[in-house]
């Protein structure tokens, strides 16, 4: 941490974007930092275990994280989170497409310079 670039706690949404996709009862969610500076803190804080905890309320049995350092991105593969998959689910969103934003709501600690330029959490870093 430096004086010019303080570490702040923000929703993941302020530093990364992502997309959810399904195959059967398995969901994947990509997490893509807007700026490379966010890659290392996300790698450290957004472990497979933490993501498993986030989706445990829906019966998730396993979470695996794949790192793509060359694209500064992550891919989370989440098993049995869809309560049966698109065709068995009672959920309006049986595909789980909205769940990327459930993950983007989790809080992370990042340098302020990692924020998206439109983020309301920005206070004055360039």
């Amino acid at each position, binding site marked *: 941490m430096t004086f010019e670039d303080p570490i702040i706690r923000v929703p993941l949404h302020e530093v990364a974007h992502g*997309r959810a996709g399904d195959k*059967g009862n398995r969901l994947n969610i990509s997490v893509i930092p807007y700026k490379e500076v966010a890659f290392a803190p996300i790698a450290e804080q957004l472990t497979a275990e933490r993501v498993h905890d986030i989706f445990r*309320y829906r019966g998730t049995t396993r979470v695996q994280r794949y790192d793509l350092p060359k694209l500064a991105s992550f891919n989370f593969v989440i098993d049995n989170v869809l309560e*049966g998959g698109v065709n068995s689910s*009672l959920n309006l969103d049986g595909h789980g497409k909205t769940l990327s934003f459930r993950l983007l709501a989790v809080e992370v600690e990042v340098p302020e310079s990692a924020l998206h330029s439109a983020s309301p959490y920005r206070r004055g870093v360039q």
Partner: protein
Amino acid sequence: MTTSFLIGNGSGFSGDRIDAPIPVVKTLVADGRPSAIFFEVLGERTVALAQLERTASNDSGYEPMLEPLLEPILKDCFENGIKIIGNFGGANPMGAARCISRLARKLKLTGLRIGVVTGDDIRERISLDDLEVYEADEGIDVHDGTLVSANAYLDAQPLVEALAKGADVVVCGRTGDPSLALAPLIHHFGWSADDWDLLAAGATAGHLLECGSQVCGGVFFEPGYKEIPCPENIGFPIAEIGADGAVIIGKAADTGGLVDARTIKEQLLYEIHDPAQYITPDVTVDLSGVTLQQLSEDRVQILGVSGTARPEKLKVTACFGGSYLGEGEVSVAGPNALARARATRQVLHDRLKFRGLDVTARCDLIGISSAHDSDAGVLSLEDYGPGPSDIRIRLAAAGSNRSHVEQSAREVLALLCCGTAGTGGARWRVTRRVVTRSYLAERAAIQTQSQCFASEDLL
């Protein structure tokens, strides 16, 4: 020097924007390089729904929007040598071919050749009991459901054969999505069936394109954070592929949306599990070394894709019928809406129990929690303070007893008189459900046929 080949996408799912292929074809015609356009319209359960429809009529079971999709582009494609490939055959590829033949007559096209690929439907030949269940689907319970459909994801080779027989349009049923784009590349460049790096490059292009607008700003744009121009007219993607496997992703000219590293990354990882082993029927693709280079506005080159041998087994998706989904909704609004919504939900749960209806059910409080919630409604119990002033209560009930499912949904309708104060806006419906489960089958057990017909012979 061999020129590159252009491949565009005209739709990413059945239900996509019907006017999307028009600017794609216009761009391909203006460019003049050899090209093709492909359509991906079969979701995991679409074949089963088509199969159910086909049992009622022999001229159905294929993509219902086929004629309106192709009518504005078929003439331009035919006259400019732009190949059309699509899995709009669904459960009835010959039916789709006959539909295209009728369209060709209507458009006064003569000499059109239509390729038809079959063999993906394995119900008659293979017993599912002999197949290994696809790992991710082990937890899926198909109950005593009746088998509606079982289709293998075919590779690109039968499509290539149809193209080699001179087809201008090729219709298939279940085929690996990227294979639809790979086939015209193999046909054009003569790539061999075991040149894994080239096949991987083509399959990656197909993967990026198969969901249509999703690589050009569709399900990407977000006010403030990820703005795109003209979201009401997102251009569909066009890839430029070199004989050496170079891949550049762009989009139709004079359209909205955008192509940049962010849109590519989101789509590259879409529906991917291990990025080092993205399995397609034609090749196993390693995406872990991919890097991106923005060449110019809306043009991004994909570098670092490599491939290894294709999987020995093909994926088969089977669909089982025999159950129903009932849904009912009502609204409450104004002062104390959240308390009234919660009471409504309790009444619905109690009514299903009281009447002994044999269903599994959940109840959403739309406006409080729905899409993200679990069947048990865990998120709806959080503290929302006074809550929003406009909430829709949705009951979903599923089971194999159609009458019980319907009676469950009708319990929501009954709330118009028996419900909490100020209940209104009831809607209810019952739909057939199809449960899918995937398996792995030996390639040798799956026999495909590639035919090519003169359009006039199909009338």
